[in-house]
């Protein structure tokens, strides 16, 4: 049985719901936030193209550190989670709460896989000798991707809470769809930030024989 959008809400000057407008404002602000972090990382890559020096004093190359297959997999997972989120929102608009729950569970699941990949990646790099303390690259990389991961984690928490809230019977109609849509906007944003990070932080390290930044040194293991 579908109960679609009945507007029990005061109409606004633009016709846009307050919650939606404020979320878009937040996302515009978050662009500046991630822009600062990403540009800090890129700036230091530009200044120090050779990679990083690990705890034993060995020169290490980013290409050899990164596991592009794993990261590609986690990128794909996050993209697919975005797809499921769009389906969840769509289900709410159609009033299909069960479909919503299935899809949102999928988003949560994929989000957790993404986070798992991140944790694995961080541990792997740590054992490979990259720490926050021993290099500028370590600092910028971990803080940038860690901040993104924190955003994902907050999103996952939000969706888990929404999932349980949907069982109280209070998530329905226009306002229910709006609440889910707003959570969806946040989730999609976190996804597109990752698209940018994936390209600018990971993929460019593989361009050409010595990566985009050009290490100037022959790449050895």
């Amino acid at each position, binding site marked *: 049985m579908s109960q679609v959008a009945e507007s*029990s809400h005061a109409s*606004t*000057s*633009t016709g*846009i719901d*307050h919650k939606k*407008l*404020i979320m878009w*404002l*937040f996302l*515009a*602000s*978050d662009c*500046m*936030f991630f*822009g*600062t*972090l990403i540009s*800090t990382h890129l*700036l*230091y890559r530009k*200044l*120090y193209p050779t990679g990083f020096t690990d705890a034993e004093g060995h020169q290490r190359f980013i290409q050899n550190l990164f596991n592009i297959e794993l990261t590609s997999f986690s990128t794909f997972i996050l993209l697919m989670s975005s797809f499921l989120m769009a389906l969840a929102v769509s289900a709410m608009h159609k009033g299909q709460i069960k479909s919503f729950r299935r899809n949102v569970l999928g988003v949560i699941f994929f989000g957790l896989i993404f986070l798992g990949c991140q944790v694995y990646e961080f541990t792997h790099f740590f054992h490979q000798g990259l720490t*926050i*303390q*021993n*290099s*500028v690259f*370590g*600092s*910028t990389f971990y*803080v940038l991707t860690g*901040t993104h991961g924190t955003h994902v984690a907050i999103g996952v928490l939000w969706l888990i*809470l929404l999932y349980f*809230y949907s069982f109280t019977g*209070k998530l329905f109609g226009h*306002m229910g769809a709006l609440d889910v849509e707003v959570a969806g906007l946040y989730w999609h944003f976190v996804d597109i930030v990752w698209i940018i990070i994936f390209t600018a932080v990971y993929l460019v390290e593989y361009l050409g024989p010595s990566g985009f930044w050009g290490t100037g040194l022959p790449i050895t293991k």
Partner: protein
Amino acid sequence: MSHDTHHAPVASKLELAPERSDLGLIRPDRSTGWADWLTTVDHKKIGIMYGAFAMLFFLVGGVEALAIRTQLARPDNDFVTARMYNQLFTMHGTTMIFLGVMPLSAAFFNFLVPLQIGARDVAFPRLNAFSLWTFVAGALVLNSSWLFEFGHLSGWFNNFDWYKSLVYTDFAPANGWFSYAPLSGTFGQANAALHAPRFTGVGTDFWIIGLQILGVASLAASFNFICTIINMRAKGMTMMRLPVFTWMTLVTSILIILAFPAITVALIELMFDRQFGANFFNPSAGGQPILWQHLFWIFGHPEVYILVLPAMGIVSEVLPTFSGKSLFGYPIIVFSGAVIGFLGFAVWSHHMFTTGLGAVPTAAFALLTMAIAVPTGVKIFNWLGTLWGGRIRFTPPMVLSLGFIWMFMCGGFSGVMHSAAPADAQQQDSYFVIAHFHYVLLGGVLLGLMSGLYFWFPKIFGRMPNASIAYIASGLVILGFNLAFGPMHYLGLAGQPRRTHTYHAGNGWETWNYVATIGAFILGIGIFLAFANLVWTVFKGEKCSNDPWDGRTLEWSLPSPVPEYNFARSPIIATRDAHFEDKHGGKKIGFENDGGDAGVHMPSQSWMPLVAGFGFLMIGIGMPLLSMGVPRAGWVVISGLGVMFLGIWLWALEGPGGYMLKTPTKTSPTPVTANTSSY
């Protein structure tokens, strides 16, 4: 139901039956006294609290300034130690900007914007309360550093292990309000305990976390206001009919949401450097301290426009009212405000002309900085155009706004002098810079804000401030401030450097420093008098009518003080300056068919924003405690995080609630009363 409103509209909230929220807790809608103020979501009460805190912190910052000036009155003075001096100017700057001017502007935004657009409240009333309490948390965190400093100086901590093992014992921040790296950061290699060697003690940590919390408060408020102004305007209130003050609120809020992220990240990076041994600004590991300067000023330059645009908005309301003419060139003034905001993002490196950026970047930033003078100048000409041919009434708000035009212009001139990079090479880090920014901040922003206070106090409290004291106080402020900061132009060009706790005799600086100190004290007396007048007004001021100034904008059509529901019936606007036109034979304000016995929907009050704000307070005190090595400080932080999340979660779950308040059915605006006799 997402809107559980009480079924019957009530005449007063005290008549409500106790109602439970979705969580099962009783909603605090029927609170009175302090509980009412702590749980309020009413923009007017929140505005008053912002204003009260701001005025308090203005005085705190003022005391810090007077201590600075006392130290500098004579050469080789030892009124304070060098470290205390550094702490004083750091806290003075940080307090005045973040705890003085910004909250006072926020007070005006809060009180006026919904009234000026014909709305019931802001878009998210509980978020508004959250902004206030988070601001209070940040202010307390920052100033608690003083408590620790005095504790240290008094020897309270001498017997504690954590104190004895501290490398640095500065508890109040001392790196300037901009806290440049690497002084505020780390150097060398991090050791096994994660703590890379630092140059400064826990004072810097107080500054970092204090500013982060204040940033959250500002951001939350700004999102709210943009949403309100775009989405909650009364019928017929198009964007181009908005009062200029509301426009400036919108531009300022947009600046805040786009500029604060830069400093949020910079603070995170600095915190990671200090706490976790990261290398963002650590020169030994290849970090670039100049990055801090870039990130700080990418925030910092828009920040100064965040400070000045609200004051300009106030002046744009006061001048037309007391000239009896509409604002000259309204669209241009609005457009200039927007251009100033936009260009404000393009000029940050003019704070860095002497850092060796290179000839091309330096020239580019110099040109852009000069370009910003253009829309500012346009505004000034439009204000003059407003005055020209008008019937000027020299009321206290008008005197202060006129003072703004003149003093801000002087500050602008010294600013343009700075924009010429070669000249700036001499002026940088000298007292000339101090003269410049105090002219724009005191002569500009403060006079504008004081003008707003005297202008709108009658609306807020329904009482008139004492006119004679207002004139005397304004005179003292203008005299004192010019005496204090005028000579600094000379002192700067004669070579006196900034941020130095003393100077030797024989440089020719003695006389003017002494004069400046006298000016500072006169300024202090003036400010104190001005504030005392306002506080006295709240309790004993002469009661006034709804519209003692023959105002132009919607808020003057309401009773003074404004009733809780704002508008008995929502207005329908047909023109700019709708209230003035309605009074004086122009288009009338219409009214919608809401309110009356059916009631107006009022949002429920809530404890949750306060709880969430309290969580921030715990985090804010806990983190520096952690830096100090106080045992179990980590638990304070974790509990603080928990309290904050709990507050937000319960806030989300309790539901907006709400009740219906009956409003009077008489809808015509109160007739204009002639100006009261003392004006």
